[in-house]
């Protein structure tokens, strides 16, 4: 059994990967802070099922031209509630630097938390196999 198969460690791994991807999306927002017509994006936080598996984003398939897409359908994993915007400049840019900085520092802190928990879980395993951590 690999370490990643343990539900707790698997969840933490998913969480850390999510933070990593979110940091990338935030970097895109900040670097395009002056690009006309750019809308900032964010990621939906991962939801975990009772077994610890990340609930995948199962969407409705549109098979005919007459079908109506569900509200807020964007790229997979994208937060549909991203419409909470502070301001949009006349050039159509909706990036708010303060908001993005806030999200980036929060993302960093949450990542540090997940990394600490991961570390502690590994220490717990080490204790279980009889080695002093």
């Amino acid at each position: 059994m690999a370490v990643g198969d343990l539900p707790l460690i698997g969840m933490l791994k998913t969480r850390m990967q999510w933070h990593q991807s979110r940091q990338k999306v935030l970097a895109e927002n900040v670097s395009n802070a002056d690009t006309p017509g750019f809308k900032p994006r964010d990621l939906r936080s991962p939801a975990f099922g009772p077994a610890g598996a990340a609930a995948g984003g199962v969407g409705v398939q549109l098979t005919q031209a007459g079908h109506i897409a569900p509200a807020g359908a964007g790229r997979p994993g994208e937060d549909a509630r991203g419409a909470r915007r502070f301001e949009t400049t006349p050039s159509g840019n909706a990036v708010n630097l303060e908001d993005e900085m806030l999200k980036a520092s929060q993302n960093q802190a949450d990542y540090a938390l997940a990394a600490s928990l991961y570390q502690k879980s590994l220490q717990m395993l080490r204790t279980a196999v009889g080695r002093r951590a």
Partner: protein
Amino acid sequence: MDFLKTIGIAASGLKAQSGRMRVLAENIANADSTADRPGADPYRRKVPTFQPRFDRELDASVVALGRVRPDQAPFRTRLEPGHPAADAEGRVKLPNVNSLVETVDMREAQRSYEANLNLITSTRRMISRTLEILRA
């Protein structure tokens, strides 16, 4: 690794903002550059533009400095009959540079630059936190 991509995206922002600073510095330096003969045009203000560019390697939309375009605003004029570039009525065309606008624009460029820099710092902290898992 996504963290290195993040740094690459933020670095593209740094590069675009410093290019913008360069154009603004050009405008400010030439705020008083008139022509040297009647009828010729003085310095025309340049406007930097930004374009999103999809980077296949980073798999993200990075920013790049687009074409630097001339400002179409009319030139200011000043009555100065003794100037070599004065027309028949004694008016001299001055550049359409407003140093207040340039200064404010420069502040904004600085702010965006710092935001990108902040993101790099925060990403680096996340990387070093990951490496600490190994150390414990």
